[in-house]
């Protein structure tokens, strides 16, 4: 990674929501950076804080009574400290966002063109007709056929893939430096997903913007991301280049994600290795390492000590928040990658088995 100043630098960001049941620690002290022209993939399950972290970048959690601490430096300016008005000048202009569900993010009563014109005129002092020309140009850029006609369609006249293209067009209206895409392809079919991912890659090449893509799909990450951050229960547990996340992952949660989904070449007779249990409550997150109750490799003191994101030995751009020694982690992964079970890997490395999860269903009740 280059030594130049990153475009976006998030430092020890915490976001908490007070609720009737207690304080939800949605984002629990995360630090990451996004470099110009590169793509950061944030992977995590629902409730891992990946969406809240990105929405906070745009100030979209402000109206919800969230307590935000830490710094979000965008080109050197701290977005957390900006006033609503200053932030509005950046949002949709320098930083734009694409949401998961394109149908509910477009207003059903207004023509697609009118919504694009609004996005352009919110930040540019241009005439309506010029903004409309820009809208047609944008629809063409994202690959909508016959854009000068389709600009007057309503969102319901677009298919799912076209709506997502329209959303991307809207995000690109002011040539943002940073595009945040939150599960941009989750609602789409595979063939359309492939089109949208290819479109995002092409636009990044042409416009040179940085992208943060949030997804739960490791396949999507492998396709588009340069760097990856894995989130679990409000914390980043591992960051590395995309190659390294797949070839030499060091966090047990990352291993779990990689080993629990079948790929096109998983032998059918091999059992999948699910991650036991369920994601924890963010009101009372587990003590110590948040992952320890579900971790097959957890040792007794892992429920007491908080792990920090630390560089992996010999890999300066690879950071892991795990209390196991790096050498142990690498020996474990060497066993897992050839298809051994966690128990077999532990025996090989000579570590005791973690105590089984207390709930006999192996799933943990939803009791908070």
């Amino acid at each position: 990674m280059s030594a130049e100043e990153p475009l976006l630098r998030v430092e020890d960001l915490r976001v908490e929501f007070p609720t009737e049941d207690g304080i939800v620690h949605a984002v629990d002290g995360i630090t990451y950076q996004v470099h110009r022209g590169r793509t950061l993939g944030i992977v995590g399950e629902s409730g891992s804080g990946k969406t809240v972290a990105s929405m906070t970048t745009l100030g979209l959690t402000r109206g919800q009574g969230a307590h935000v601490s830490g710094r979000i430096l965008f080109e050197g300016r701290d977005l957390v400290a900006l006033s609503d008005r200053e932030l509005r000048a950046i949002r949709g202009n320098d930083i734009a966002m694409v949401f998961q569900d394109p149908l509910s993010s477009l207003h059903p009563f207004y023509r697609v063109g009118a919504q694009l014109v609004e996005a352009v005129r919110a930040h540019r002092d241009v005439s309506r007709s010029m903004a409309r020309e820009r809208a047609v140009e944008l629809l063409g850029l994202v690959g909508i056929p016959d854009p000068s006609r389709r600009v007057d369609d309503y969102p319901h006249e677009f298919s799912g893939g076209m709506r997502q293209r329209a959303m991307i067009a809207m995000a690109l209206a002011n040539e943002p430096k940073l595009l945040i895409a939150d599960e941009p392809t989750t609602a789409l079919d595979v063939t359309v997903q492939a089109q949208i991912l290819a479109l995002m890659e092409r636009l990044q090449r042409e416009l040179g913007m940085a992208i943060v893509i949030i997804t739960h799909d490791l396949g999507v990450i492998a396709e588009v991301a340069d760097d990856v951050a894995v989130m679990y229960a409000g914390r980043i547990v591992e960051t590395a280049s995309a190659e390294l996340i797949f070839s030499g992952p060091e966090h047990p949660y990352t291993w779990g994600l990689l080993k629990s989904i079948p790929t096109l070449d998983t032998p059918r007779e091999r059992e999948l290795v699910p991650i036991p249990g369920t994601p924890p409550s963010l009101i009372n997150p587990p003590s110590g390492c948040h992952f320890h109750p579900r971790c097959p490799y957890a040792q007794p003191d892992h429920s007491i000590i908080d792990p920090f994101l630390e560089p992996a030995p010999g890999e300066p751009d690879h950071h892991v928040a795990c209390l196991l020694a790096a050498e142990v982690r690498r020996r474990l992964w060497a066993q897992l990658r050839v298809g051994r079970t966690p128990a077999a890997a532990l025996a090989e490395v000579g570590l005791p088995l973690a105590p089984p999860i207390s709930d006999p269903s192996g799933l943990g009740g939803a009791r908070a």
Partner: protein
Amino acid sequence: MSASPAADPGSAFGEEREHGSTAPSTGAVPGEPLVQVRDLVKHFPITQGIVFQRKIGAVQAVDGVSFEVKRGETLGIVGETGCGKSTTARLIMRLLEATSGEVRFDGQDITHLKGSRLKAVRREMQMIFQDPYSSLNPRKTVGSIIAEPFVVHGLERGKDQRKGAVQALMETVGLNPEHYNRYPHEFSGGQRQRIGVARALALKPKLLIADEPVSALDVSIQAQVLNLLRDMQRQFGLTLIFIAHDLSVMRYMCDRVAVMYLGKIVEIGAGDPLYAFPRHPYTGALLSAVPVADPSASPSERRLLSGDVPSPASPPSACRFHTRCPKAKERCSIDEPLLEDKGTGTQAACHYPLTREELVAMGVRFPAMNAPPADG
């Protein structure tokens, strides 16, 4: 249209399949398929007017589908939104009335069964739904949800007996039997899907249809449910129809796979040859579009399908894929291709099937080619 699996090409690949072979199903005729679907058609009318509704068209959700499901096997149906895969499942379950065609279950034509005879057949087939949040009644306890099939069919009478049966089921699917009196909201998504599986297994069905059973679940939970379904299939000798849009999950779970596009099966065959050497350009496009969790293997020159799926209310003529097919020629819009054996282990409905060179150029990997041949 003959989709006879008699010449099941899967056997050539020597797949070992312990599960299913020991099916304890009652009165099973070995070798006879459990489900036979012939020329199944379902058109939903599009009407206009309020009082005098005139039919102005039809959504051709399923349009002439034929296949068989053998006892103990898992048939996957894969396709994009609106291709008719869920409608096909609902037609087999008799949750929808077919416009024409025939569904045979266990040798019996069930397409027009009514009343008590339909109820008797329904005992033998159960369904698991996609959304574990909306498919469980929030006002009922888990115990009464799982006991519902017993109530409907008047089985396991007596309070204690019913409770015992329900708790045994909960144990089987990996739920804590003590949670009998809890409500669905107290369970996580993965656990709820287990409740759905327990309910489906209550009547010891022969056929289980799972409609996107894991797509609403978190990644770390999906494997738990997939493993559970495989265990249950082995344990109870179930025949499974597995509907999904995820090709990786499909390959892992299914013995044979049917690919649907706009209400028709475009390719069907055993999993290994279908994934190793898909012949229909649509199957190839689907496979090439799957994101691979391996950055070094990402095909740089993948061939993307252009455009979207056309409306099933006015599907393209002849081969329905010809509007998006990179290989389409004039003949494809005039002369409808039929499902026929392409000599590589699958049946495809295509005049100009893919060649090996084209597949390599599309960046489709050949997982079965790398896998060690299974013996036995």
